[in-house]
């Protein structure tokens, strides 16, 4: 390899770019197996007229626009409106629809943390998640490690998230393995008397609604 080929000076020759050019970042990384598969599937669906490229784009745009702040508003309302909370626990799908959230093809089940029960959510088969109200799931939620260990040793996983659940409390794991999606309704922390729904929503985090932590009055 000559000095020029090591990228020491600009060069205009054709070659197959098996080396990096200093100071530049390659535009694309190597495409993985699943990316290629997804791309091929998307192109076929478009070619067959099942979906359009704009449908795909619009859906991605919608998913990216979802945010855990929406779930936090739902929780804060349940903490401040007993009737809404009752409806939310009875029929989550209908209750969040009142607030303008459409769960799509899935149904929403809301599980309530109490003095006796701590709930946590996992999807062992894939990564089902209440996207319309929480947005995209975090990477750890999709990891094989979380998906397998959350059902086998939930208390150890909770400890790793900094959450110690005493043995006097039941840990209830929910495997989101079919048509339901889950939202944990955390317990309203002490020291929040008189707070507005907006103030309360600000302390409800994504992880608290998946059940790997609990909110605290900051």
């Amino acid at each position: 390899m000559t000095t020029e080929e090591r990228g020491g000076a600009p060069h205009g020759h054709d070659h197959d770019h098996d080396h990096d050019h200093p100071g530049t970042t390659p535009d694309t990384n190597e495409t993985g197996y699943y990316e290629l598969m997804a791309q091929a599937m998307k192109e076929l669906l478009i070619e067959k007229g099942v979906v359009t490229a704009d449908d795909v784009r619009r859906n991605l745009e919608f998913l990216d626009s979802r945010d855990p702040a929406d779930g936090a508003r739902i929780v804060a309302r349940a903490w401040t409106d007993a009737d809404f909370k009752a409806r939310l626990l009875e029929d989550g799908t209908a209750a969040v629809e009142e607030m303008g959230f459409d769960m799509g093809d899935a149904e929403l089940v809301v599980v309530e943390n109490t003095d006796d029960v701590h709930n946590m959510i996992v999807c062992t088969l894939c990564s089902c998640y209440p996207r319309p109200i929480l947005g995209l799931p975090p990477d750890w939620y999709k990891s094989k490690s979380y998906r397998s260990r959350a059902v086998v040793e939930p208390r150890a996983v909770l400890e790793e998230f900094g959450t110690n659940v005493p043995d006097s409390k039941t840990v209830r794991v929910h495997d989101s393995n079919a048509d339901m999606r889950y939202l944990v309704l955390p317990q309203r922390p002490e020291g929040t008397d008189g707070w507005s729904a907006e103030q309360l929503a600000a302390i409800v985090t994504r992880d608290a609604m998946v059940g790997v932590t609990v909110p605290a009055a900051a």
Partner: protein
Amino acid sequence: MTMFNVGERVRIRDSHPPGHRRTPFYARGKTGVIERFCGAFRNPEELAYGFDGTPQRELYRVRIAQTDIWPDYKGPPGDTLDLEIYDHWLEKIEG
């Protein structure tokens, strides 16, 4: 009228058909209690292969004691796992 009632003890089939199934391996052959009826849904095991998913299947949430799933479960005996099981994977327990 649903096929199973809330509170009824059921066994999840210990069956291993090929294909994309929605019953996790860890739950097959385990016994639990119907926690709720979720409604009727098109069968995802058919939808996965391009069929229309009919007839619809009744979906239930089954609550199982963790110690019944994992013999060496580390945690109090009251800990539970709830998951969703379609009717064709459930068996009534006689007696």
